[in-house]
């Protein structure tokens, strides 16, 4: 049975739950608190808990959207929070808390300073790691990552302009030589670029991603024209068509540049971005679907991994304090994946996807899984 045996507090009257046996959330667990949040009250089942991993099961019994906070001794610092709890819903807040004095607060309607209560975490002797400088480490990670994004987009702008010129001048050999190298900068920050829902389909859509009536533009449109070998009955683009698509790609890249100048990132953005880049590898690159015409998937693969690695490195000081075992696992998995990728290097770049054997691909896919699994746990670990 995968189904959670924890009976929802709220629905007790509505749902006749079938016989549950080992109800772990029962009152016996001193680290699990239930919170009844209404429009006027915030009842926490216990005002103290032993240090360690605490769970607040917050049920919104009111009619407004509610939020629940655990605040530091000063009543200002947010230790942990859960937002957007719709009326009638229950959400768990899980965090790791050292001994100290805290406040609990519900914020019905998401306004005001909330309905507060005292909360004490007693010393259980369990090591929950140092606290206090997390915010500084997050700020440092944000600074690093934002500057990495800006730098990659800078380079993308320059190389896209060069590539577009080559395409328009029909210097196809040079354009082909430049294609993968320019795209590396896109792929390194792909999850950021994809967060702009209007730009991504214009710049990076594959033909199958479109439906009748959609215009096929961007990188892959030019890719197909430069590598038409696998395209059945293909009609080459005219000079005018090439110019239109190439100019639009340059213009869209300029828009991306503008939008990434003052972006900021939370720890969760960075961590989930790293995981997202590995998802991109798993669904598009390792299968050879991304660069269908040029077969330059391994360039993209490496670039996604580069971007994920930078994100992880920025968060490492925090992660090492929160969960050094997880950090070690990620480090090892990055190294194994890189070693495998290096086997397929060829000169400045890589062999094309069609040169990989089934066995090579399987090994790469396994290494991606080995890295993705711990990487997906990073956000939860640094936010607890």
């Amino acid at each position, binding site marked *: 049975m995968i189904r959670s045996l924890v009976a*929802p507090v709220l629905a007790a009257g509505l749902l006749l739950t079938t016989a549950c046996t080992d109800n772990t959330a029962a009152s016996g667990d001193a680290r699990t608190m239930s919170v009844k949040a209404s429009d006027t009250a915030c009842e926490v089942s216990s005002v103290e808990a032993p240090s360690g991993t605490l769970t607040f099961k917050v049920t919104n019994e009111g009619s407004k959207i509610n939020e629940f906070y655990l605040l530091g001794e000063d009543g200002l610092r947010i230790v942990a929070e859960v937002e957007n709890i*719709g*009326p009638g*819903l*229950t959400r768990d807040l899980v965090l790791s808390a050292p001994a100290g004095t805290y406040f609990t607060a519900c914020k019905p309607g998401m306004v005001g300073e909330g309905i507060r209560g005292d909360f004490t975490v007693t010393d259980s002797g369990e090591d929950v790691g140092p606290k206090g400088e997390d915010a500084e480490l997050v700020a440092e990670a944000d600074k690093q990552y934002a500057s990495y994004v800006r730098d990659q987009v800078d380079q993308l702008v320059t190389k896209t302009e060069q590539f577009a010129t080559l395409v328009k001048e029909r210097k196809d050999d040079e354009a082909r030589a430049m294609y993968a190298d320019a795209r590396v900068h896109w792929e390194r920050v792909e999850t950021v670029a994809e967060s702009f829902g209007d730009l991504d389909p214009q710049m990076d859509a594959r033909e*199958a991603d*479109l*439906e009748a009536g959609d215009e096929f533009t961007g990188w892959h449109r030019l890719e197909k024209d430069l590598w038409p070998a696998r395209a059945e009955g293909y009609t080459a683009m005219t000079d005018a068509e090439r110019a239109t698509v190439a100019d639009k790609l340059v213009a869209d890249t300029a828009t991306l540049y503008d939008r990434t100048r003052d972006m900021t990132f939370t720890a969760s953005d960075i961590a989930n971005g790293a995981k997202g880049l590995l998802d991109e590898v798993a669904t598009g690159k390792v299968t050879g679907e991304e660069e269908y015409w040029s077969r330059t998937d391994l360039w993209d693969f490496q670039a996604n991994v580069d971007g994920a690695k930078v994100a992880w490195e920025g968060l490492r000081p925090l992660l090492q304090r929160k969960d050094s075992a997880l950090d070690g696992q990620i480090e090892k998995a990055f190294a194994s994946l890189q070693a495998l990728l290096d086997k397929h290097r060829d000169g400045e770049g890589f062999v094309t996807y069609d040169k990989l054997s089934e066995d090579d691909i399987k090994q790469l896919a396994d290494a991606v*899984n080995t890295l993705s699994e711990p990487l997906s746990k990073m*956000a939860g670990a640094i936010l607890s």
Partner: protein
Amino acid sequence: MSGLSRRGLFGAAGAGTAAAGALALSMAAGKPAEKEPHASDAYPYYGAHQGGIVTPAQDRMHFAAFDVADGIDREALIGLLTDWTDAAARMTQGGSAGELDAMSGNYDSPPEDTGEAYDLPPSGLTITFGFGPSLFVDGSGADRFGIATRRPAALERLPHFVADNLNPSLSDGDLCIQACAHDPQVAVHAVRNLTRIAFGRAVLKWSQLGFGRTSSTSVDQVTARNLFGFKDGTMGLRGEQKAMIDEHVWVPDGADPAAEWLEGGSYLVARKIKMQIETWDRAPMREQENIVGRTKREGAPLSGGVEFDQPDFALEGRGGVPIMDVDSHVTLAHPDHNDGVHMLRRGYNYVDGNDDLGRLSAGLFFIAFVTDPRTHYIPMQSRMSRNDLMMEYLQHIGSGLWAVPPGVAEGEFVGQALFA
């Protein structure tokens, strides 16, 4: 256990009909249908509509698509449909595919029935037949069976949707059969024997096994979970919503002057949707619930309440952002955002082993019955394939559309009116 089984059905047909009648009677009397599926369930084969549409969704499915063999003419096609109808009528009542049961007959001949369901009760088996666009006009434009002028205007191959990655060998077909039962062996037995009956007249093009119904088609059924772990089809139509079913599922009289034969029938949309379950499993719970628009545990809309409460799409959370993401699965699929159309969904989970990269080949075999795909499926799927946040984890790999003729009267064959 009931006395119904595929053993020695000589003379037992009456018992099957009686049991089916009793079930129909208990439903007509306003009593709720039995909550728990029973092996002895036998749904009537003959009636105004084919079974397997508003029938409470059974737990297992075997779906199959066929192409009519070369050289088969109108008469031979009618012969096949007649033989299929007779076999379906028997099997749904717990009987054998042939007139003789699996263990009887000439000792020097192979048995008429393949035998694997010999000891098994009816198990709620329903068999639903459908006619694809290519039955009317084939790939080369030929009207093989003299029915081209009677093709319903809505029966056209579905358009290419954004990000479709369809495999031709998992798509389309001149004919389809949906066999559903509580017991997978009973469903497989049905498709296997119908395939055997068709040899020389129609060939199996592709087929799909499904388990763990992901839809509820009766108010007595709890909403089942799909392989993403979420309750699926909360908003789907239930068989008891008679007025809604009439409006959104059956083809009404006068719908299409060329295709009067389809009145009282429906359209079956099938989509094989591969789910990237490995990457989904790495998505934070926050993202999973936001994508779906419901809580994972209860299936309640994120705007609050319990599972069957209507979502509040206007409710704003932190920062003035709608608490139901505008591109969440529930938001985009909701009738409020689809001109008020509803679908009767009847999908199943599937796992076809694994791929070469060690990933489960898993997903959802989506089936919906609708009154007209042009209003009730295509516009919604166009929007969803373009905007649904869940598309990040989905890939549509198979597709088909079939017209489902109305029910069969005793002595008729399925779709008879088309050939009249």
